[in-house]
């Protein structure tokens, strides 16, 4: 009888082949973000929540004095639910653009992480997850503020953080892709002016899109922010069945698309 002996390797440690999207790699990148967050959470929470709240108050009470109800809802509640999507956008697309660029180009953080057993795919995925978690959390602020001004609680509100997370994941991928593709941080202005501002305005946040011209309505259908606005509103005021499934599917599709795009562009940027 023969016994097979394991081949000798230079060291005795087990040599498990490391795969893709490993949990310890994702956790490592997330831990870095969480520890860093402890040093800047105040400013981040401030900018991500105060700005949409100002929009809510300005529009809610400014327009609210001219129009009592929109689409059957008191205007403050209409805007209060709409600006949840704004808060999600502000706390995902912008940090993804700016902090990704800074970490890749100025702080060289990503060089340090990629020298550890972490691949670009894991790095990008973990960074997007982290931004999505923050977006899901900060996104709730306008809704909470609107509740102070009379928005009634509902069970559907409990899904709003999840909707914010899914949409935030997509916008994080969008921002990361832009950051990876741009040669200079000044170029972000083109994206903000030509892409984000129009999307922000044609999303049904401040006014319903069904009074817009047909071309603008079609455009809104392609706008992930519009689907986020609608889904949040239905979560708060009452589900609409198939329409909400379409909104959800668009947000998930948007997230999957930008996730792969971000990984591709970041690989091009970070690996020579």
């Amino acid at each position: 009888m023969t016994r097979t002996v394991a081949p000798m390797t230079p060291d005795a440690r087990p040599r498990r082949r490391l795969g893709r999207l490993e949990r310890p790699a994702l956790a490592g990148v997330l831990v870095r973000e969480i520890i860093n967050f402890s040093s800047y959470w105040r400013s981040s929470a401030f900018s991500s929540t105060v700005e949409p709240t100002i929009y809510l108050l300005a529009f809610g009470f400014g327009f609210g004095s001219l129009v009592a109800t929109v689409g059957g809802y008191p205007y403050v509640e209409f805007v209060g639910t709409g600006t949840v999507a704004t808060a999600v956008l502000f706390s995902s697309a912008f940090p993804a653009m700016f902090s990704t660029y800074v970490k890749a180009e100025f702080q060289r953080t990503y060089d340090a992480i990629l020298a550890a057993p972490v691949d670009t795919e894991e790095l990008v995925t973990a960074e997007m997850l982290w931004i999505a978690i923050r977006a899901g959390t900060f996104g709730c602020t306008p809704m909470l503020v609107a509740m102070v001004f009379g928005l009634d609680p509902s069970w559907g509100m409990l899904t709003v953080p999840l909707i914010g997370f899914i949409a935030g994941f997509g916008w994080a991928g969008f921002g990361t892709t832009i950051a990876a593709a741009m040669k200079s941080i000044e170029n972000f202005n083109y994206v903000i002016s030509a892409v984000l501002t129009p999307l922000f305005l044609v999303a049904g946040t401040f006014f319903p899109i069904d009074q817009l011209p047909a071309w603008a309505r079609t455009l809104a259908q392609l706008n992930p922010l519009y689907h986020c606005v609608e889904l949040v509103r239905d979560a708060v005021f009452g589900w609409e069945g198939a329409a909400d499934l379409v909104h959800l599917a668009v947000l998930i599709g948007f997230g999957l698309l930008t996730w792969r795009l971000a990984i591709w562009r970041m690989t091009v940027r970070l690996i020579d």
Partner: protein
Amino acid sequence: MSKPLAIRLRGVVKRYGPITAVAGLDLELPEGSCVGLLGPNGAGKSTTMKMLTAQAIADEGELEVLGHRLPEASKQARAECGVVPQLDNLDTTLTVEQNLVVFTHLYRLGRGERREAVERALEIAKLVDRRATKVDKLSGGMRRRLLIARALVHRPRMMLLDEPTVGLDPQVRQELWALIDGLRSEGVSILMSTHYIEEAERLCDSVTIMSHGRAVATGSPADLIAEHAGTEAVEVYGAPPKLAEVEAAARAAGLSTRRTGTSIAVLRLDSANGATPAGERRPANLEDVFVLLTGEDIA
């Protein structure tokens, strides 16, 4: 029997568009030794270092790190390596200790091992008293020590050091040399790129001199000096016309020369048959070899 190799490169080529940064590099690092990559700026040292962590992908050739083929198995190789980058990429708003804790996670240490690893790294970096200090309050030398200690939290078998002492005071440099020498004596394999000759001479068992993306010479510092620069050199000082004269005469006599900026060094005096120019005699050194092999003109 020869020792197993921690690094093995064969015919490695890396191009950036029309520029060939590494042009057929062969390199071997026996386990437990310290090898220096020496070369002027643009010789391909940093590109080589980046390829070893798969942050640059070679166009041609074979790369093996700790028995793992790159780039396919580079993640396993990275798990067993510590990397000290040329540019400081510490998290400056975090404390010394937080920076180390982050890396215990990135290098996948178990829950029970992290505390001890952080303490050990703090001791290596001599920053035990500074554990709660934010990195942007540290001196340049402290930051470098932390950068090295950060790469050691997982007790790597190999260290990749890219210009570890560039831009530091002589005192700080000596301190880091002691640290690196300590690692070597513990049996850690070390690959170090540098353009400081003294650093390579003091720390490295073997030096590979790179020029234009190729290895132009490999050997221990002493062997390289003996082979390429001989045992003794003479330095002749004077006005530029006199130096040009000395240079021409030495060349005519079959001797190697090199300009030092203020003098002409005439090398290989031991092989000179006949009169040698008058001047200050000194032992030949690695810098002579470096300049002889990589050229006097700055690209």
